[in-house]
Every structure is written in C-alpha cells, then in structure tokens.
C-alpha cells in the first residue's frame, strides 16, 4: 500500500518539489509540514474529508497531509455551486472539511447527525494508515456530474515510480489542478521525485510559458487544443522540452507531427485517461489513435473491446475505481464504457467523437441540445440544429443550421442579433461559431431532428 508521504520519504530531501511565482518548496519542507500538523492530522484520522480551496499550493499541501491518513478524500473544484457541494457531502458521506490557514491544518465537522456509525468507531483509533480513496467529480459529460472513487493506484497506473530518471523532470502545470487531468500532472511529478512548477492562476498563457521557461520546465502535459495555442505563441520557441504529453481530447496526426517538429528531442506521449476509467493507456509512437494490438492483446494489464454502439470499453486489471452512490461504473463483464466512439482502419484504432453527441471544443464539452434551446428561446428562430465541425485550432467548433421566423429579415443583422443573444446566455465556446440560415430542417419519423 503506497501513499504520498511514503513516496516522499524516498526522495532526496533537498530536491525542490514545488515552484510557485513566490516560493520554492522542497520535499523535506513537505515532510516538515506534515510533522508540524501531526496533531490535527491524527484528529481527523480515518474520517471522510472534503478538500476545497482556491489556493493551488494549499491544495497540493492538503493532498500530501491527508493521503494515507483519512479514509475518503473528496476533491472539489473551488468554483463548485453550494447546492452541488451539499449533494456531494451526502453522497460521499463526508464528516468534515479540511483546509489550511497559514499552513496550519484546520478542520470543521459537518452536521454530526449525518455520521455513519461505523466511521464513528473509527474515530477512536488514531494514527491508522489508510489506503485513502480519492473521490473526484466527473466533468459532467452527462450533465449531472457523478463522483468517482479512486486510489493512488488507479490514478497513477501509468506513472512509473522511478525516482532515478523521474527526478530530472520539471513539470509545468497547465491544467486546472483541482480536476482529474491536473491531479495526473501533480502525481506524475511527485511520484517520481520531480519538480512541479505552478503558475499563478491569473497568468495569461504567455506569462505562464515565460514562467516555465524561466524555471527551466522540461515536461508539459496539455490538451491538443492547448498545445495548438502554445505553438501559436512566439514564446514557445524558447521552451526546451524532454517530455510532451497530450490528453483529454482526440490527438490528431497534425498536432502530433507539429509537436515532433517543434520538440525533436522530446518523448511525445498521448495518454488515454478519464475520471471514470482512470489512467487507461498511453500511445508513444507519435501517431493518432492506438495500435490494433492494444485491442487484441490488451495493454499494461488492461483489456479493451468495442461495444455494439462502437464505443471503446476498458476493463481495468482490478476494479479499483467506482461510482459513489447507486450508479454502476462497470458492465456485467467488468468493462467500463468510455463513451468514446472508435473506428478500426488497417492496424490502427482511431477516435471519432463522443456517443452522447456532445461536441468537444478545445477540451470543453458542449451539448448541442443546450445550444438549440437557447437559439429557439431568442424568438427569432423557428427551428435549429446544432452540430460539430472539425477545426484545426480547437478540434471542433459549434455550428448551427437555423430556420428564421422572418424569412425576409436582413440576414447579417439578424445573425449578429442571434449571436449576441447566445453570448448572453451561453459560455463563449458554446456560442455557434458558424450560423447557417436554411429553408428547412430534416425531421425523422419520430418527429425528432435528424442527427448524423
């Protein structure tokens, strides 16, 4: 059974663990922090604890302090709505909230009546070591985010614990650290004794890249859309990377080749992972999709198959991660449906998109139905059909075919009016990038819009 503290103990103590714009923190600083907070760590030993902070350094410190000591650790993004928080507390049976005040661990009990009696007994046994469950909300592909319970094992399946070679890497944090992808980068760095460079969250991308250059960052993980943006910045010429990792979106041949060209000495890896499936597998040959042999022979102890719906199914070696609550993550045969539609071409398996029909715009999910509802509520439109169009910058963009109520209206004027309305109601990436005026939309026999 591993936990973060145990791993840190094996890392040379003077090694820098974390760099922020104002501080450098060594691995020994982290162990010292743990020692100083021993009393309060023991006070919440074995409990189900939530972590919520908008300070990235505090967040990392809390993970180190609590992993291995609390039973369940609910990780909540700071911008979470209060009602959602309450629901998560109930579902994950959270007893207490943990936070840092000037690097001192503080905690607050949640309504004592909600205590589970079994956990109550555990409170008396102090200083136990637990294999802490990391409870992480999904990104809400299905609109209602669910909680998935992981362990350090399922979160780090492809993270090699190799301090010898791993410690020379200085990882730049580009993802939101409070979510699955950001946690991956943090764990990748800390579990191999590397350095994590955390930029200020208010930095522009340009400042972030300059900060990485200044701090000699040599390993970066980002979505394909984020990489495209980085490559469009003149500052990217000064990045010297040994490790380039892509994830979170379909990595096409174009971006992969562009990265090979830009960083000829870097190891380029596309990681297939999700909050639900944990770390699936990685593809290292610099090509889009993955080799057919993964499907026929499995990869790293994971088995793969394609469902009747043409979605990729993953069967982890052990059933570690699970949904909290009354949802079943696994099919009867132990496979998890990833919801990613795939296609076999020759000796390769390629990703085509999501089976939910959701559109991935630069890593952000858009539900066409939501955009259609907003378009219709503008009162200028009689019918609307929203779909994805491939795009070299963001992977996909949102397109809409609409039937105007007033067919004689000034098209340019009404277009701007509709988009302005959408911008008020929707986040920018959801607003149709292309708006086509059509005479009619195809309706299926069941009276629904025909979707391709």
């Amino acid at each position: 059974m591993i936990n973060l503290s145990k791993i840190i103990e094996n890392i040379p103590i003077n090694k820098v663990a974390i760099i922020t714009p104002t501080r450098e923190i060594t691995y020994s600083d982290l162990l010292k922090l743990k020692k100083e907070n021993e009393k309060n760590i023991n006070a919440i030993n074995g409990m189900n604890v939530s972590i919520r902070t908008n300070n990235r350094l505090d967040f990392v410190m809390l993970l180190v302090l609590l992993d291995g000591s609390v039973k369940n650790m609910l990780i909540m993004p700071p911008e979470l709505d209060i009602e959602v928080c309450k629901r998560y507390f109930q579902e994950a049976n959270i007893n207490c909230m943990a936070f840092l005040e000037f690097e001192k661990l503080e905690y607050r009990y949640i309504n004592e009546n909600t205590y589970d009696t079994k956990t109550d007994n555990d409170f008396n046994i102090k200083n136990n070591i637990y294999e802490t469950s990391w409870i992480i909300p999904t990104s809400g592909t299905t609109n209602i985010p669910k909680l998935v319970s992981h362990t350090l094992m399922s979160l780090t399946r492809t993270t090699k614990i190799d301090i010898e070679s791993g410690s020379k890497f200085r990882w730049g944090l580009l993802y939101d650290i409070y979510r699955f992808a950001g946690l991956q980068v943090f764990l990748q760095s800390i579990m191999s004794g590397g350095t994590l460079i955390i930029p200020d969250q208010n930095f522009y991308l340009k400042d972030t890249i300059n900060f990485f250059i200044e701090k000699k960052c040599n390993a970066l993980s980002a979505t394909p859309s984020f990489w495209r943006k980085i490559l469009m910045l003149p500052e990217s010429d000064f990045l010297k990377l040994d490790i380039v990792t892509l994830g979170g979106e379909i990595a096409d041949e174009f971006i992969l080749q562009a990265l090979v060209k830009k960083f000829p000495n870097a190891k380029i890896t596309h990681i297939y992972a999700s909050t639900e499936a944990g770390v699936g597998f990685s593809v290292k040959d610099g090509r889009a999709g993955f080799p057919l042999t993964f499907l026929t022979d499995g990869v790293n102890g994971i088995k793969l198959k394609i469902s009747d719906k043409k979605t990729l199914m993953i069967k982890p070696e052990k059933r570690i991660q699970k949904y909290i609550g009354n949802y079943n993550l696994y099919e009867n045969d132990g496979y998890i449906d990833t919801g990613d539609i795939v296609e076999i071409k020759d000796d390769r398996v390629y990703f085509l998109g999501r089976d939910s029909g959701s559109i991935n715009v630069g890593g952000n999910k858009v539900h066409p139905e939501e955009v259609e509802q907003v378009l219709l509520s503008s009162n200028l439109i009689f019918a609307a059909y929203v779909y994805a169009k491939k795009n070299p910058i963001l992977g996909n963009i949102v397109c809409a075919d609409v039937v105007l109520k007033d067919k004689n209206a000034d098209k340019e004027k009404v277009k701007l009016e509709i988009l302005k309305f959408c911008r008020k109601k929707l986040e920018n990436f959801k607003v149709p990038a292309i708006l086509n005026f059509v005479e009619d939309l195809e309706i299926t026999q069941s009276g629904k819009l025909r979707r391709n």
Partner: protein
Amino acid sequence: MIREKIKETFMEVLNQVEKKLLVSDLSDDVVLLESGLDSLGFAILIAALEEKLGYDPFTMLEEPVYPKTFGEFVSIYEKMNPNKL
C-alpha cells in the same frame, strides 16, 4: 487579394465575437494571439475563410505548422491557394 479577404474577414469575426482590434494595424509582425482574437476567434476565422475562399489550408499542409504572426497566417493561405498559377 487573399490578404485583403483575410483582413476583411478578420474584422467581421472581431465584430461577431464583440472584441476589439488591439493593434493599430494588421501588419505582418502582429502576434496573432495579441491581435484581439483569441484561439476561439481564430477557429471561427478559419471556418469563415473556408466558406469564403473555399479551402482550409491547415488540412492541406504537408508539414504541420501553426502560425504565430499575421504574416505567417496570410502566407499559409497564399501558399496553399488551390487557384494560384
């Protein structure tokens, strides 16, 4: 010709996304992501140009490149123009 079309479409997209031009002029050395359009804006610009010009040069390039400046952006469109002699 293409340059003028790109400039014109650029201004239309700026208007569409309700952003302002952050430089005095779209000269060749303007850094794209500092021009006023963000990456979503450029995604829209490329889609809009595909409708107007009839091609998306980024899908046609043999060597993958991402343009950094306005000059590079225009030259990709000029280089890949299927109608050029």
